[in-house]
């Protein structure tokens, strides 16, 4: 690991200045992803600015009735918060389905959003990876890729975003709030993660040096029946192969409102808007759920070893919607 300086910030502006003044300064949340990648040599900052001392932790309701989760709130505290559990249960479930109790106790909400892919080639300096070293190639295309992406991929990169939390945030149309030295800004999660294209190393639309301050859950998207279901290679403490966050409102046997987001299938949490469109207004029956899932997955491009994800995603969408319609 390369040597680095460490500082604690007491104010947002102070934190922004400290990172701006250093060529390769980074914010440190719980460190569960950054320290891991520093040990592997994938990340090599010169300065870590610890943001857990900032007054950004906690969950509150704003004047519009939106739920605002502070950036340094731990994953555990976000999942356990009564308002999150009541109005956005799929978010609680997604967070609880991720990592382990020990990791969730230190991992922050902002750190979770910005965690990097678990593609083995990204973490292995001896292999080609366009995300780690732009232009070096992608070893996953011809390598071990049974857990790689099937949607929105490019010849440059087929890695997935590993976050469970972000899938449910995508479901609820969450908004990321940040601050830079130029002032405050916000980005809807639907535009937060950038398409892969030929720049897989550019992952988000967050301005350079920006500090995430909170994540806001709009009141209008709350869904008491929303659910998150994750399939993985062991029962717990493993990343998703495919996961689904969904919410559905049925009126007189017809789909009144539906929202679906997928994890483990793309470089970012995947909102299944084609399936949603197919379903709106139609009968809320399993055959229709399946047909809508198939319409969404028509664009899937499987690699030699991850074709099973197409079937898995279809079945999961059908099963979770059927369960909510129950």
């Amino acid at each position, binding site marked *: 690991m390369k040597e680095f300086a460490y500082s604690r910030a007491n104010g947002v502006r102070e934190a922004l200045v400290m990172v701006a003044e250093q060529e390769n300064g980074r914010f440190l949340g719980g460190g569960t992803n950054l320290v891991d990648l520093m040990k592997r040599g994938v990340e090599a900052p010169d300065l870590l600015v610890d943001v857990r001392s900032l007054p950004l932790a906690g969950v509150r309701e704003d004047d519009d009735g939106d739920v605002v989760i502070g950036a340094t709130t731990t994953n555990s505290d976000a999942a356990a918060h009564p308002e999150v559990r009541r109005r956005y249960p799929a978010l609680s479930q997604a967070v609880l389905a991720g990592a*382990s*109790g020990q990791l969730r106790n230190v991992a922050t909400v902002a750190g979770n959003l910005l965690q990097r892919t678990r593609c083995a080639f990204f973490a292995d300096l001896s292999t080609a990876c366009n995300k780690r070293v732009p232009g070096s190639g992608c070893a996953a295309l011809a390598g071990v890729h049974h857990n790689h992406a099937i949607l929105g991929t490019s010849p440059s990169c087929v890695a997935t975003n590993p976050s469970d939390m972000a899938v449910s945030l995508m479901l609820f149309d969450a908004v990321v709030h940040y601050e830079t030295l130029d002032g405050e800004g916000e980005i809807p999660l639907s535009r937060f993660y950038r398409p892969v294209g030929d720049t897989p190393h550019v992952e988000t639309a967050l301005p350079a040096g920006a500090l995430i301050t909170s994540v806001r859950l709009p009141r209008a998207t709350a869904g008491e029946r929303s659910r998150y279901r994750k399939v993985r290679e062991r029962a717990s403490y493993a990343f998703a192969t495919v996961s689904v966050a969904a919410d559905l409102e049925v009126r007189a046997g017809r789909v009144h409102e539906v929202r679906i987001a997928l994890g483990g299938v793309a470089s970012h949490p995947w909102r299944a808007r084609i399936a949603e469109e197919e379903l709106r207004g139609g009968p809320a029956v399993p055959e229709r759920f399946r047909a809508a899932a198939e319409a969404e997955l028509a664009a899937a491009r499987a690699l030699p070893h991850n074709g099973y994800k197409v079937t898995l995603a279809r079945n999961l969408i059908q099963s979770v919607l059927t369960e909510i319609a129950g």
Partner: protein
Amino acid sequence: MTDATRGAISLQVNGAEHRIDVDNRRTLLDALREDTGHTGPKKGCDFGQCGACTILVDGRRVVSCLTLAVAAQGSEITTVEGLAEKDELRPVQEAFVRLDGLQCGFCTPGQLCSAVGVLAEHAAGWPSAVTADVSPDCPHPPLDADEVRERMSGNLCRCGAYPSIVRAVLDAADERAEVAR
């Protein structure tokens, strides 16, 4: 010469203060094992994947291998060495001994710290990934074997002592419920 990449820090471990000189790269796990002499926390993987290094920081269970020692300044750290009150084992420690919650014992310090955290988290009403309904209006779900397995899933045991680990945690939970009654 001043060097921003290392310095003197103070760690509060099991109620005692330790002043040590560390490189900022030092993990809390290495600082405990090599600088303050707390070899209870074990290094299984060094990447957050096994739970052998689990300790309590300000009462919450965390993995010490992904925490930097400098970032732990100002926190109350409890390692397995600090779980017992003098010679009196905690109920969960006593249950591990009585019910054989271990074979080689390498994972045990982490399992014990994690179990203490699990009992506190459950008592605080936190749901888990196997809790059927996470709504805060739902009655507090009992800590059954499925809940214990899920909540303890961040602690691997290469000896496969899982069945007796689950029994020991359930036993300690029962005892706590007994005391509360």
